[in-house]
């Protein structure tokens, strides 16, 4: 991390920023000072005011009158005068969570949508000039690709970097202005995150000032120089990142001292096998051996592409199996379809909630019932009342916060949506629950509740296989962690589980015998 230079100049200051939405303060007199050349993280749970701040800075949301924005040496501008054009002229550049890039088009074309196409005679596009300019930019930002490469061919982190370059390309000097990144890693797989963070550190060292908005604590600690934490629209504090621990940040975000964000494991599992997997092959898996004990949470640690998601999908009958055997409660288990897996008592929460789990446009009630409608159909009548009372009970049991069970599911927050998906399966008391990144896009508080739900299920006899990218979270939430690498389980780590050890193991091709057990 670059040391903050002596006598730091201020790249961006906001003073007394407030925003009232429908009578309540979303942002309450925020003061923020960002030094030139630093990576400044803006942290906070959902609804803390992060996004409001960013939108005001971008000029797309009008703040309440009274605040000021100051960029570098220029004069303070009242927020009521702030517009997207002024933000751009002042050197603020934004890259949003899901940057609007075009995967089918080349890097050069993607960049041209920001800066315009250079024109030749007769108004035609001057491809040579465009490619030369793009090559120079790629070189400057150390992206190793040809300008003509389609964006889809790049790794995820590099696609994000192209979006950053697009935002920055029309400026010549790197140390003016501020690059604002709004949850840039939210859509990235874990392995890509580090690659992007490396790049950001490089840009910061070259003098780029970065305002980094995130709720991923480990990222913030690894990339930021200073951290500002918001809670309920107010600034809690701005602190140096050096020497901070995640626990300190969670305490600031949540507002109360944290003892344990993750429920502790019950000390003994019965040791009976709920599921045994022998020599499972298919897709990226080349023979997985694994035993899931009754009532345990078995974590799977693996890099992106290690086959962790495919493993879960195979066990749910949603991915073809090439060979190997699986038993469930001692019986042979070879699901050919999700229907078969469900009948055997296996449940699956996929990684991509929006694309594969939620029925958007449908109510919370219908989302809870999804796939189980037949159980409410008796004597040619659909028992709506029974379905409603079941839904209301689940809403209570699974800590889902809604106005009513008829509310469309897409109006819930990420955490509550995930609880709906979890409840859909947990209410059936599955024997085995397969969870793929159950806390993605979920804030700290809801995350703790989701782990509470998982732990409660295991107490009732459900066994869980858990895939989580963040080693820290995986270590906390699992009773044991199996490391998946090169299509095989290389080792199984028992408690106490050390996150750094997991990271190491995930990245180590060979594991020496002593650590492999079970």
């Amino acid at each position, binding site marked *: 991390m670059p040391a903050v230079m002596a006598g730091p100049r201020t790249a961006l200051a906001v003073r007394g920023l407030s*925003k009232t*939405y429908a009578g*309540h303060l*979303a*942002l309450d007199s925020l003061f923020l000072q960002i030094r030139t050349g630093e990576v400044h993280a803006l942290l906070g749970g*959902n*609804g803390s005011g992060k*996004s409001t701040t960013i939108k005001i800075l971008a000029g797309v949301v009008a703040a309440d009158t009274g605040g000021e924005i100051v960029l570098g040496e220029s004069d303070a501008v009242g927020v009521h005068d702030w517009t997207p054009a002024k933000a751009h002229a002042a050197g603020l550049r934004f890259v949003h969570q899901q940057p609007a890039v075009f995967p089918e088009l080349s890097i050069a074309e993607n960049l041209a949508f920001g800066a315009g196409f250079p024109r030749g005679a007769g108004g035609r596009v001057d491809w040579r000039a465009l490619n030369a300019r793009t090559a120079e930019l790629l070189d400057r930002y150390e992206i190793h690709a040809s300008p003509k490469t389609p964006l889809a061919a790049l790794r995820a982190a590099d696609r994000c970097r192209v979006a950053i370059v697009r935002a920055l390309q029309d400026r010549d000097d790197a140390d003016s202005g501020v690059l604002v990144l709004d949850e840039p890693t939210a859509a990235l797989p874990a392995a890509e995150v580090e690659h992007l963070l490396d790049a950001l550190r490089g840009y910061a060292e070259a003098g780029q000032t970065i305002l980094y908005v995130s709720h991923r604590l480990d990222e913030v600690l690894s990339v930021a120089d200073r951290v500002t934490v918001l809670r309920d*629209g107010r600034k809690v504090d701005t602190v140096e990142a050096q020497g901070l621990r995640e626990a300190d940040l969670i305490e600031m975000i949540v507002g*109360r001292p*944290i003892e*344990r*964000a993750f*429920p502790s494991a019950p000390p003994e599992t019965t040791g009976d096998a709920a599921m045994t997997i022998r020599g499972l092959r298919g897709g990226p898996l080349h023979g997985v051996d694994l035993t899931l004990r009754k009532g345990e949470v078995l974590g799977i640690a693996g890099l992106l592409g290690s086959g962790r998601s495919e493993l879960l999908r195979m066990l749910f009958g*949603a991915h073809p199996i090439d060979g190997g055997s699986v038993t469930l409660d001692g019986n042979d288990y070879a699901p050919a*379809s999700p*229907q078969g897996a469900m009948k055997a008592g296996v449940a*699956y929460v*996929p990684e991509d909630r929006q*694309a*594969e*789990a*939620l*029925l*958007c*446009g*449908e109510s919370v009630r*219908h989302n809870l*019932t*999804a*796939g189980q*409608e037949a159980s*409410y159909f008796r004597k040619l*009548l*659909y028992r*709506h009342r029974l379905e409603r009372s079941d839904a209301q009970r689940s*809403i*209570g049991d699974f*800590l*889902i*916060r*809604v*106005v009513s069970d008829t*509310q*469309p599911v*897409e*109006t*819930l*927050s*990420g955490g509550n949506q995930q609880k709906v998906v979890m409840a*859909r399966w947990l209410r059936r008391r599955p024997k085995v629950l397969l969870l793929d990144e159950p806390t993605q896009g979920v*804030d*700290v*508080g809801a995350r*703790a*509740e989701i*782990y*509470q739900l998982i*732990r409660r299920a295991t*107490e009732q006899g459900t066994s869980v296989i858990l895939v989580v990218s963040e080693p820290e979270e995986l270590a906390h939430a699992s009773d044991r962690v199996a490391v998946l690498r090169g299509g095989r389980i290389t080792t199984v780590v028992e408690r106490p589980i050390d996150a750094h050890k997991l990271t190491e193991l995930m990245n180590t091709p060979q594991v020496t015998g002593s650590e492999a057990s079970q």
Partner: protein
Amino acid sequence: MTTRSRPRPDEAVADLPTPRTTDDPVVVTKAPDTSVDVRHPQRSVAALGNRVLRQYSLVFLLVASFVLYSTWSKTSSVFLTGDSLRVMAAGQAVIGVLTLGILVTMVAGNFDLSVGNIAGLSYVMTATLYAKHGWGLWAGVVAGILIGGFVGGINGVLVTVLRVDPFIITLGTASAILGFIDWYTKDQSIVNGIPDGIRNFGKDNFFGVPDIVWVLAIVAIVIYYLLEHTPYGRNLHAIGSNRAAARLVGIRVERSIATAFVINGLFAGLAGVLMLARAGSMTPTIPPTLALTALAGAFLGAASFKVGRLNVPGTIVALLFLAVNITGLQYAGVANWINEMFTGLSLIFAIALAAVLSKERTVKKTRKTA
């Protein structure tokens, strides 16, 4: 991601689930979250009024057009008479059955542009079976319906096996059917040999309402029951909402969609039989706009009652709205071209409205993020 609205004094906390009990084994240190996710705070009268206006806007428009044609000097003398209303309602029966049938495929996110021609096929084949092959009354009716189901099955298999856009597939089958009709009828009409039972059914009334309108009412009830009150209908809604998610909750997606096409075809076949009943004879020209009118009705119907969701009551109102206006304008002396013009414009209007509504939704969503 949505925002967590801060607890306000007026926020009802009582109706929230208790986050956890004290003897819970888990120590969670987050302050009790008293927030709820609210999109429409439906508290104020204005908001309620707004919602009613939206849900029932098409009903208001229907009533308004009805009043207009009943009082307008150009139309009042003929519009509000029993005969005129009966003719208007009977005229909607065929298109109504088609529209309700197409709902079944549309709810699951599919289209069927061939329904009009399926009805046409059933129409010409049933007439031929009666006149040239001497089939009995009921045998002909059943055959007409099954012919529709058969072609629907072909559509369904093609759509689910080839996984091609149903739009393209059904456009193809629509054209193929038309060719088949030409070859099959050799462009000859059938005037004699249609059983009296069928012909009378197309003309007679039952309690003052045309028989075929009763059929429409029964079809509406059946489709409503199927879509809203059976597991199958709910599965179709789930598939239409998110196909991948439906698959992962154990719904047999392909089978359900293929079945939807069969059901859609059966109702199109029934519509064909009703066409024959109304006409009393067979002329091998199939109105080219049947499928499009059905689409317009379904889309327009999604703009009322359950806004944004295809639904049976909305579809019925939409059909009546189209019928009242087309009939009214024809009585007012506008030429026949108004029929197609009005249907086409209504389709465009309905789709534009759907686009605006969904846009409004996204705007609200982004605004909520704080």
